[in-house]
Structures are given as structure tokens and as C-alpha cells.
């Protein structure tokens, strides 16, 4: 199998080692007007068509796995959501379920706590998907739709803020339960907002399927067939757009997803339009789920938080969850102390890179932004700043602490920063 993909094991530094027939090479990133994310794409072209695409990653290693080994299980509960800027609740959900299982209290978590966790996860899926198809419209040159979707996204952001106290980082979950309750007044306030949003998302879907200017941009672009998808193992909406109907909420249910009425969305066309429609339908599905969860919360009871000892007994366990972007998998090893022995995080974007490179083969260069966007790339920010003094050319590297401290001093003594 390696032979099929051997071409991409080539290193390209100066353009000398290129695939057969390529006459132009385009470099995208790590800093590029299109890409807010630090990844380096190398695209080989013959005329206007892509012959082959390549990627380099690793521009923002933050050393989180190492940092987690130096902190306690309890402290890590609040470090883990920082793995991703948008899907923070899902990372936290995977983490707390893993630790609960290692501590042996996974049965004691009450129904109410589980429902609140699910609410947080689904609300996050809604706002993540809306963000994504807004930016997709922007990349396809349809800025009106971008503004409309982002305006409507504020509705769900307000609900999340009302319930958790923060817009994108709800941080509701704790080992053994949840931190805050979702009282009836808040549920009553949220219900009409959710119904409004359902109408709006249905309208977005109508635009995406009927407005020819955007359909032409997405249809039959970057087709990934089911056979190819099985080889390059994409996950999440990328896979469900190519006819692989696997959603971890269905295939390996966690929390109470098997108790709630919902459907897996999948399309078989495999183009960018299919992945868009998967996300649009999933948004609607999630919004309906939110309504069901609020209904169930009226009768559900139970303690919100179980007491858990800080020391976690020896063992190892793997948990997965369906993040908005795909499959999120954590593997944790405990050694009997209050700190983890080893903790491994794999966020969904890394698993989808192969599929995206495969999508690009033979496409027009003008379709690159849409295809690159199709898997919802999400890397995260660095922790180190380099300051260059322009007049002298002198450079200094500072850690975050020093940077903050310097900024503080500059303000206090009313001096220029440098």
C-alpha cells in the first residue's frame, strides 16, 4: 500500500525534486492570507491542474502531553479543553470519561449530569459547524452568506454563554459530574432561541442547495470515493460525505446518546458539497437533540458531582468521542499517584490530512481554498514569541511569562515596549 502513496514521501526544499510533469509549485502557509492555521502546503501544478500535493506540519508544538505529566488529574481537567480552540467541550468530555473509568465511578455519574454534558457537546457542534460553513462560503466568494451565518451563530453562542458563563470555553465538566446546573428558567429561555435557530439553519441549507453560484463552486469538486476513503481513513464529516456512515455516537455510544432519538447523516457523493450538506444536516439534528435534552432535563434528577479521590489507581484506558471535526481519541495511563503516567491526545484534523491531499489530485488550483477548507483544519497557537527590533536587527526570544511581564512594565512606567 505504501507504493500507491510513495510520491508524497519526497521532500521538497528547492523545487528540484518534483513529480513528473509538474511545472509550477505553489507554497501555501504557514503564513498566508487564506490560512489562519499554521500548516505548510506544497502544491505541484501542471498548467492549472494539481499533480500532487504535500503538507508539512508541526509549526506549533505546545508540548501539552508532556505538560500533563507534570500536573495532577484535577488540574488537567482545565488544561485539556485548551487542546482545541473550538471543540473544547468534547476534549473535556473524553478526558473526564477516561478518568472516571480509571477511578471506577463511571456508573455513579447521574443522569442529569450526563444530560448537561451532552447539551454542552451538542451546542458546541452547532456553533462549530456554523462557523465552518460560514467560512466555506467566504472561501467560495459568497461573503453575504458568511455574514448571515455568523450573525445567526450568535444565537447559539448566547445560549452557551448563558448556561456556562463563557462563550467558547464552557468548561462545564468535572471528574465525577458537572460544575453547574441547567435550571428551568434557563431552559425556558433557551427553547425559543433554539427554535429560531432551526428556522435559520433550514434557510442556510436552502441557500446551499438552491443558490447556483455556490452550488457550482462546490459540486463535483474534490471527489473522494468510498474506496479511496477506506484507504486514507478520514473521520467525521469528511468520511460521512464519502459514504462511510460511522459516527461514534452511534457505533460506540457514550453518555446517553443511545437513549435519544436522532439519525446519522451521510451522503455518498464524496465531493465538497456532500461534506457541507453532512454538516448542515448534522446541525439540524443537533438542534433537535438540544430540544430533547431540555425536555428530559425537566424530570431527570441526581447528584451533579460525585466525590472522587485525587489519586487514581493503576490502569489504562482509551476513550473516543465524536468531535465536530471527527473522531477524537485519548489514551491515558495511570500509575496510582495523582498525576498521569502518560496521556495521549489525537485530535481529528491529523487523521483527515491524507484524505484532503487525495482530494486535491487533478483539481484546478482555483478550487484549492475550498478543498483545503473542506476538512475543517484546526491547528493551534504557539506559546513563544520572537521579537525583532527593526532598526538594529537584534532579536530576542521570550517565553509567555516574560512577554506578559514586559508588557506590564511598559504600561506601568509609560515606556515603549521595546
Amino acid at each position, binding site marked *: 500500500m505504501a507504493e500507491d502513496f510513495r510520491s508524497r514521501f519526497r521532500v521538497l526544499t528547492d523545487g528540484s525534486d518534483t513529480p513528473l510533469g509538474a511545472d509550477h509549485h505553489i507554497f501555501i502557509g504557514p503564513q498566508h492570507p487564506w490560512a489562519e492555521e499554521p500548516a505548510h502546503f506544497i502544491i505541484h501544478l501542471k498548467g492549472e491542474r494539481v499533480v500532487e500535493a504535500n503538507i508539512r506540519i508541526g509549526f506549533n508544538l505546545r508540548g501539552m502531553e508532556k505538560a500533563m505529566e507534570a*500536573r*495532577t488529574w*484535577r*488540574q*488537567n*481537567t*482545565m*488544561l485539556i479543553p485548551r487542546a482545541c480552540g473550538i471543540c473544547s467541550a468534547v476534549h473535556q468530555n473524553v478526558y473526564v470519561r477516561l478518568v472516571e473509568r480509571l477511578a471506577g465511578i463511571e456508573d455513579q455519574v447521574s443522569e442529569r449530569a450526563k444530560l448537561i454534558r451532552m447539551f454542552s457537546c451538542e451546542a458546541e457542534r452547532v456553533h462549530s459547524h456554523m462557523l465552518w460553513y460560514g467560512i466555506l462560503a467566504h472561501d467560495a466568494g459568497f461573503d453575504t452568506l458568511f455574514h448571515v451565518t455568523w450573525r445567526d451563530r450568535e444565537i447559539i453562542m448566547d445560549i452557551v*454563554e*448563558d448556561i456556562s*458563563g*463563557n462563550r467558547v470555553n464552557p*468548561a462545564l465538566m*468535572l471528574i465525577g459530574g458537572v*460544575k453547574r446546573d441547567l435550571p428551568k428558567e434557563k431552559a425556558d429561555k433557551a427553547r425559543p432561541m433554539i427554535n429560531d435557530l432551526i428556522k435559520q439553519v433550514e434557510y442556510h441549507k436552502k441557500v446551499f442547495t438552491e443558490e447556483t453560484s455556490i452550488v457550482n463552486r462546490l459540486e463535483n469538486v474534490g471527489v473522494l470515493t468510498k474506496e479511496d476513503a477506506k484507504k486514507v481513513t478520514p473521520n467525521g464529516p469528511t468520511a460521512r460525505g464519502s459514504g462511510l456512515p460511522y459516527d461514534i455516537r452511534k457505533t460506540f455510544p457514550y453518555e446517553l446518546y443511545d437513549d435519544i432519538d436522532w439519525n446519522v447523516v451521510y451522503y455518498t457523493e464524496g465531493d465538497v458539497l456532500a461534506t457541507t450538506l453532512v454538516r448542515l444536516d448534522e446541525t439540524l439534528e443537533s438542534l433537535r437533540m438540544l430540544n430533547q435534552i431540555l425536555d428530559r432535563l425537566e424530570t431527570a434528577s441526581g447528584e451533579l*458531582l460525585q466525590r472522587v479521590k485525587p489519586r487514581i489507581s493503576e490502569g489504562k484506558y482509551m476513550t473516543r468521542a465524536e468531535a465536530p471535526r471527527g473522531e477524537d481519541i485519548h489514551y491515558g495511563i495511570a500509575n496510582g499517584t495523582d498525576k498521569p503516567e502518560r496521556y495521549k491526545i489525537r485530535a481529528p484534523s491529523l487523521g483527515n490530512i491524507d484524505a484532503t491531499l487525495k482530494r486535491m489530485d487533478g483539481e484546478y488550483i482555483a478550487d484549492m481554498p475550498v478543498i483545503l477548507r473542506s476538512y475543517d483544519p484546526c491547528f493551534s497557537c504557539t506559546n513563544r514569541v520572537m521579537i525583532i527590533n527593526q532598526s538594529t536587527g537584534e532579536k*530576542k526570544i521570550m517565553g509567555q511569562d*516574560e512577554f*506578559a*511581564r*514586559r*508588557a*506590564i*512594565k*511598559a*504600561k*506601568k*512606567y509609560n515606556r515603549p515596549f*521595546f
Partner: protein
Amino acid sequence: MSKKKLLVMGREVIKNQAKGPVTLHISERLEKHPPPEDIRTIPRIIEEKCIMCGTCVKVCPTHCLWMEKDDKDNGMIWLLRPQCMWCGHCQTYCPKDAIHIDREPSLSVSLFSFNVRQDYEMICAKGSFKGEKAEKKLAEVIEEGAKTIKEIEEFRS
């Protein structure tokens, strides 16, 4: 373009002209759309309830709390405000419910003040640590900050 389409577009244009701008000034927006009552900001301690057990210092993920104490009734807890990420762990694990996350929206405005005197804050002082000792500590912290500035200046010259 057909005549009908032109007419529709023209109507929209006139309608939007009459309506005026949709965007709002930030102060107007805040009035119409206030932040929710229970947003999370920095922690506060009720001094009478606190028993100086140190749990909040131990569980804080960002190490932004620290304490100095002699015994149960003598001690103080400091908070480095810009470093606190408002996660609420200190509230969850406090055995006496002495610490709670403040819900004052206006607090968030002054958070990134970049001023040493405001960044380091003593959120709890008990017994003999009240007053004089706290002042001394504050002076120490500011002095430390001044030292770093000197270092940076040496680097620049």
C-alpha cells in the same frame, strides 16, 4: 437582467436606505444586550469562612494563587489576576465554600490592565497578616518587577 428583478432590487435598496444603519455603537449594544448575570470572572474569598487549608492553591491549574501563612488564623492568599483563566476549580474544591467565582461583569474590563499594583491582588488576609505585612509584600512584588525591567534595559543597551 429582467425588469422584474431590477424592480425587486430597487425596492430593497430604497427600503435599506430608509432604515438607516444596522450596526450599533458598542455602548448601545451593551444596553440592549447585557452580558448574562452569571458569567465567570476572577475568584473572591469570604475571609470569615476561609480556614487556610490551601486546597485552592493546590488545585489551581495555572498556579495563579499562592499563600503565606503561620497557622490557621494567620495568613494571606494572593492572586495574579492576568494569569487566572476563570475556570472555577478553586470554587469547586474548597471544603468550606469560602471561595467563589465573582459574577461582576465590569471586573473583566480591568483585568488586563498591565499594572503591577492591579495585577497582584491580595484576596484574603487573616489575623496579623492584615495591614502592614500585606503592604510590605506588595512593595516586594513591585520591586521584583522593577528588577526585571532593569534586566531588559541592560539587554537593550
